[in-house]
């Protein structure tokens, strides 16, 4: 009955939804990195001692996969998808929140419009070659914010000859995709241009109980409304060799989309929409002088997002006097220089210095800017006998907040197929602009927020044989000063540095090449996430996640089957409410019908379970079919 409790129902979901808007988770000898295809690792040189996984985009040829769906092939990853195709999806690494993972496109940090979590649904999957997932507190390697780890999105790269490909698909719920890319020689280098357009009506049928307290209460079918999404994306990447030891790389990527915001199953919002546009640009000069390698890079990001028909209580009629459109723009500009040089025979140093600024401007946040400064040094020390050390130290200043991110990793190759590794890291995450300033509906910013801080230690082993690749990691992470939105009596929600958590876990991955072109892979992630202030489990962290896949690639026939299982996990902070476990079976098969042309058919959620919802009661789709035609020359 108190006014406060009236707000409780609306404000927390609203704050969580609003937060993403303004801001609701290596090569050769490096790291315990496993390519899901079972090929030679080619992960991030930034984190040689970190647990990592490489997910190749080509692995999913003939399948319709979002970036989030592809990431689920890796252990230690969970993706929070707020509904069906085209709807927002955020990433969590090792149980960290979406804000606590760094996502980079060709090395350029991405972020949501308010400086927070990246919406994976805005990233076009067909424009990417692969994704490199590095797990752990990796601030020294990837900068502040990498408290759960980092995902490096590697865009398609050009080749010295004309090549290209195209994909078209059509499927359930009015879903369709067109994508094409072409690589060509240009000047003293090459270029690749890729485009993707996709859309969905999103009008799937879902089922829910209206009276869940009654045992055996029936499920009723509903059609999801206002879940349509349309997006267009393009990527241009040009590489030029300007001299014997001098080169330049240009990256331009842009995306624009429009989607309905359908709301939860209990409180649908048929009038709410979101429009967004974003772009990334980067220019890098690279060179070498003897043993010294160097690079200089300038990059920038620009994002704009507009909400229509959105209110604190639900939806409203766009254009009505009490239903103003809300937009927000954010941008960043960075310059970065990097030197890599040997020191003696045992040390390879990497020194990085960067500076820049980021800004936000919107009705909800006001106009704010802050400077960025970073200095980092890393060393790869060979100690002999197959042992290497990887210390690192990075200093960052973000606005008024400063922090050090040290790390230390060690690798040991006692015999060729076996690698052992261990790593420790400590870092921080500065509050986002949204957390500091966002004022919308019942949410208020908190300019007094301090950075979140975390450290972690992990150890692992990897066996990389011709018949089996096996990786195992165990980790222990500690978080403090976590920023959590809390009710702020009498009538607001506001972020505070109140969280204190311990997350421990185990990650296993096995890849087995089989005869006749088959490849089996299995990953298992275990999380034990505890609120240290009261001992309860942390909400929204599934203790178990299993992903198993059997796929075949060949000259004329291909196919796959996979199982994705997420165990039940807490919905509240008191271990009394849970989101049920979810089991998804997907399968697909394809034939090369003519020359380079493949036709594939794919089915997702084969069990047609229509009762799955995410943590905010956003329904997830049941059985779906898609037909895919693709060709590459």
């Amino acid at each position, binding site marked *: 009955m108190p006014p406060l*409790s009236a*707000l409780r*129902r609306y404000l927390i979901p609203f704050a969580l939804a609003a937060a993403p808007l303004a801001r609701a988770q290596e090569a050769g000898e490096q790291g315990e990195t496993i390519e899901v295809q079972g090929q030679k690792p080619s992960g991030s040189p930034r984190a040689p001692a970190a647990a990592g996984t490489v997910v190749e985009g080509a692995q999913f040829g003939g399948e319709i996969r979002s970036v989030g769906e592809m990431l689920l092939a890796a252990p230690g990853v969970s993706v929070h998808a707020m509904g069906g195709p085209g709807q927002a999806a955020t990433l969590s690494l090792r149980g960290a929140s979406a804000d606590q993972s760094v996502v980079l496109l060709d090395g350029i940090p991405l972020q949501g419009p308010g400086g927070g979590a990246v919406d994976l649904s805005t990233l076009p999957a067909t424009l990417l070659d692969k994704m490199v997932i590095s797990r752990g507190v990796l601030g020294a390697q990837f900068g502040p914010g990498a408290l759960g780890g980092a995902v490096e999105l590697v865009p398609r790269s050009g080749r010295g000859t004309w090549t290209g490909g195209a994909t078209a698909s059509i499927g359930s719920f009015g879903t369709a995709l067109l994508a094409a890319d072409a690589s060509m020689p240009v000047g003293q280098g090459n270029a690749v241009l890729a485009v993707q357009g996709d859309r969905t009506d999103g009008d799937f049928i879902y089922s829910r109980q209206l009276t869940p*307290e009654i045992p055996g209460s029936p499920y009723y079918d509903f059609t999801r409304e206002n879940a349509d999404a349309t997006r267009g994306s393009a990527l241009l990447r040009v590489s030029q060799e300007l001299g014997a030891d001098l080169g330049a790389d240009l990256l331009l990527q842009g995306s624009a989309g429009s989607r309905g915001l359908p709301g939860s199953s209990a409180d649908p919002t048929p009038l709410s929409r979101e429009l967004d546009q974003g772009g990334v640009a980067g220019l890098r000069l690279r060179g070498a002088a003897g043993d010294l390698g160097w690079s200089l890079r300038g990059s920038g990001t620009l994002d704009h997002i507009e909400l229509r028909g959105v209110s604190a209580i639900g939806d409203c009629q766009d254009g009505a006097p009490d239903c103003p459109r809300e937009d927000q723009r954010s941008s960043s500009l960075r310059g970065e220089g990097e030197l890599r040089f040997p020191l003696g025979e045992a040390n390879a140093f990497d020194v990085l210095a960067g500076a820049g600024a980021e800004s936000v401007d919107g009705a909800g946040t006001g106009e704010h800017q802050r400077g960025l400064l970073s200095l980092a040094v890393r060393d790869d020390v060979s100690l002999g006998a197959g042992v290497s050390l990887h210390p690192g130290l990075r200093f960052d200043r973000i606005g008024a907040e400063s922090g050090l991110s040290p790390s230390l990793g060690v690798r040991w190759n006692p015999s060729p197929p076996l690698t052992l590794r261990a790593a420790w890291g400590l870092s921080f995450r500065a509050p986002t602009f949204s957390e500091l300033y966002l004022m919308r509906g019942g949410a208020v910013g908190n300019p007094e927020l301090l950075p979140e801080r975390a450290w972690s230690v992990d150890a692992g082993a990897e066996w990389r044989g011709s018949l089996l690749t096996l990786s195992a990691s165990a980790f222990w992470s500690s978080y403090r000063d976590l920023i*959590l939105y*809390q*009710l*702020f009596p009498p009538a607001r929600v506001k972020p505070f540095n109140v969280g204190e958590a311990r997350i421990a876990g185990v990650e296993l991955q096995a890849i087995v090449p089989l005869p006749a072109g088959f490849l089996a892979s299995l990953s298992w992630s275990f999380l034990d996430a505890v609120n240290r202030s009261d001992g309860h489990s942390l909400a929204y962290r599934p203790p178990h996640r299993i992903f198993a896949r059997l796929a075949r690639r060949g000259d004329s026939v291909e196919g796959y089957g996979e199982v994705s299982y997420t165990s039940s996990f807490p919905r509240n902070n008191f271990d*009394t409410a849970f*989101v049920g476990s979810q089991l998804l079976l997907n399968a697909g098969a394809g034939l090369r019908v003519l020359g380079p042309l493949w036709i594939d058919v794919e089915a997702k959620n084969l069990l047609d379970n229509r009762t799955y919802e995410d943590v905010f009661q956003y329904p997830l789709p049941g059985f779906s079919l898609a037909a895919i035609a693709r060709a590459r020359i």
Partner: protein
Amino acid sequence: MKRLALPFALLLACGGPFRAPPPVESIALPAGSQLKPYDSSQPGKARPQGLEQAAGRVYVTLSNQRDDFSNAGPGFLAYFVPSVGTVSLIDLGGADGHQCQNPGFVRASADGRLHVPCSGDFSGADGARAIVEVDPLANIVTRRAAIPDGRVPNGVAATANRIWTGDAFSTTVFAFDRATLAADPVAPVPVDCPKSVFSYVADVIAFKNDLWALCGSDISGALYRLDPDTGAVRGQVIVGPNPTEMAGLDDGRLVVVNAGDSTISLVAVSPTLSAQKVFTFSSQNGALQDIRAWGHILFTVASAFNTAQRIDLDAQGGPKVVGEASFGANSGPYNILPLDDTQAIVSNRGTNTIAAAHWVTGQ
């Protein structure tokens, strides 16, 4: 609870269970110009909250807010006979329309008066915060007490000599002299509970010669037993996290609904004050907003899932949901009012209606 006195008297007089006339299925609440918007281009919506029975009618507070929670006009009490459904309004805003905004609770006192706390704009500094007294026989505002600055009233309980309310800004309860409406005839009384981030007074009620105050926080909750005249603490007991509402049972015990962990605490007063969690809601229900009692039957509202529950407190094996009602998407049921031990109505903040509960009982 005094509102139960009349039905029980009827029950005793007739020698059988009291049965209220069936309520109207759904009652639309006033909108638009009926709510006297300050700016006709930006009217509010009824946003009904508290429910109470008096003088043979049901009264419901209308907070009259826009979608951004701003106050669009004066607060109202709407009243109706549930079996008839015709709605009339009492303007609580006074001559300038600003004497009461955002009313939440409404409670009847032993002498039949209604008291309504108005929270204003939640700033704690505006003049629209008040306790408004209404005579339900004449359906007029009889008196108004302004809230001291820095406080936002939450809950209301009229005892013989005091009108008590809680502070949504702090964990204190404070009083007005019942005769003069002078504020703070006794010093505000702290009613703290352990917290991590926030705590506040969720509600106060008068029950069985005691004043009861509920402290709610993000991690805990406490029920205080207070002297109805002085506010002196007679006892306290820990309940569940983030409790939102409480109700008295006819056997002298109390029940508290805890939104934090979706549980119900049963509080015994004698021999000592003690609490026990006796029921946990399913994982699909949340944002529990209200609890009422009729004999051994409890009525609750789960706002996040648009449902209400009918719970048999004395069921074999412990409290059991014996009926559940759904009010549909976006309904946002907020308060529930039992009309007898089976029939109940809810105030739907989302759809701005009063709706009758149709219980699904299962096997």
